[in-house]
């Protein structure tokens, strides 16, 4: 083992994906499994967790301080990267992927690995759908938008009802927590929660399983190290969909 100081990378290119989402291409590749994340150091601001959307890209949604600063960065600017960390998605033969918003980021590399039969993609409106073209190239994409501007009107859960879920051996989900909780409720009703897995977002400080800021109730599991991908049945009776913690450790509602 060697020192795991952040690796310095340069931004090669920035791609505008949606009004609020950009992809940053780095000058270095990381060996990773889809679903794993890196801790991205934006010098002078903060360090935040980001899924790898490919071996050399992260795909970032503007959310607050750190991501705002990142949005001001362009080619040649430097980032520090620790990782990849976490477990990633379990590989399956026939996977159904369900993505909401920027949640498509960790699912794109999974789809590219050729195991995803179908991918349900949701967003508020057409302009906010992420990776439509790239996903279309490698899997069967079904779309839902809240306003019906593309695909089915409504939530991705609506798309689920049209599928024969029994045909899939795994269901992999990443998106806003309310959307993921809705998916979990649906699969629980159908008795297939054990076949599902969810990539969680929790506030993270260390990223390596030591500080405790990302632990979930009641298992005490660490999202950064034991996750971020957890089996659906483990999340059934948990804080998931109900509350999370902020930087100080206080609970806040989802």
């Amino acid at each position, binding site marked *: *083992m*060697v*020192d*795991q*100081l*952040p*690796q*310095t990378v340069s931004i090669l290119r920035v791609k505008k994906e949606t009004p609020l989402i950009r992809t940053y291409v780095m000058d270095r590749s990381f060996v990773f499994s889809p679903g794993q994340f890196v*801790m991205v*150091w934006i*010098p002078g*601001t*903060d*360090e*935040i967790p980001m899924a790898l959307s490919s071996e050399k890209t992260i795909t970032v949604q503007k959310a607050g301080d750190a991501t705002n600063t990142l949005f001001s960065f362009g080619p040649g600017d*430097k980032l*520090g990267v*620790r990782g990849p960390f976490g477990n990633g998605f379990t590989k399956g033969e026939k996977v159904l992927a369900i993505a909401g918003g920027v949640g498509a980021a960790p699912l794109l590399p999974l789809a590219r690995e050729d195991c995803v039969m179908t991918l349900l993609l949701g967003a508020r409106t057409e302009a906010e759908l992420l990776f439509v073209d790239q996903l279309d190239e490698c899997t069967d994409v079904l779309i839902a938008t809240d306003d019906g501007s593309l695909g089915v009107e409504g939530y991705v859960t609506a798309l689920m009802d049209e599928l024969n879920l029994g045909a899939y051996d795994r269901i992999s989900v990443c998106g806003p927590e309310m959307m993921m909780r809705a998916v979990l409720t649906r699969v629980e009703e159908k008795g297939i929660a054990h076949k599902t897995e969810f990539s969680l977002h929790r506030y993270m*400080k*260390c*990223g*390596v*399983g*030591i*500080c*405790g*800021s990302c*632990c*979930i*109730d*009641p*298992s*005490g*599991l*660490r999202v950064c*190290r034991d996750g971020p991908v957890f089996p659906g049945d483990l999340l059934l009776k948990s804080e998931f969909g109900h509350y999370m*913690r*902020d*930087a*100080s*450790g*206080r*609970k806040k509602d989802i």
Partner: protein
Amino acid sequence: MVSIRPGPVTVGGVALDNHLLLAAGILGTTASSLSRVLLSGAGGVVTKSIGPHPKDGHAGPCLVVLEKGILNAMGLPNPSKEFVDEITSLAKKPVIVSIFGSNPDEFALVGSWFAGKVAGIELNLSCPHAEGYGSAIGTDPALVEACTRAVSKSGIATWVKLTPNVTDITAIGKAAERGGARAIVAINTIKAMRISTGMKCPVLGNRYGGLSGSAVFPIAVRCVYELYETCKIPIIGCGGVATADNVVEMMMAGASAVEIGSAVYHDVKVFETIQADLYRKDGLTPEEIIGCAHG
């Protein structure tokens, strides 16, 4: 290998399930993570340090894993008083709440929230990277004595955790003893820094941080040994403990129990692992081991 005969353990007024405690600030923010560590074999757990006001902590990076240690500057993030509710579910367990403040009154206030609700209180007078807290106070014997007394006078079992970033740690240990501490915990992290040569600036958001893990073990053993020669109250060894033999070594230096933090990085079940190696029915009694490297 030297092993220890299992049996009841009471240190500094707190009954523990064995000699191994979780150190403050490691998986210590929620009741469920503390409970997970207890279930995996810790004889007791120390919580994240709780202060008078909620704090978000320093900007990241907050922690980097080095080849033989961990460098961190969390900045004492904590939910403050909300933590009282958090740990009600652990009421009967060997839980020690770590607290901090910037003066004796703040220590007394935070301590009072937990009186009667936990097995003991550990004063963080030693965090090397939080302006106005921790070692900013913990390097001054008079302040250490006053803060200790402010909490200990309530009668709760009070432990004081010392910083090694001083010219003479025994002077601080004696101050804690005078203030009514029931045990001394040594050591907290050592003030340190790494610089990203690629970024041309310090890696940690706070620039300065604290070094822990195997790298500091020989320094921690030295501090415990020095304190054992000067103080009468029990010492809890902390810093770089990662194996059963490290535990024995700390105890021979003078520790009555040990706290373990960074080793959790390599093995979240480190308590289970160490316990299995450490205890044997035909082992030595703790009394035969504690401090036996002296004289």
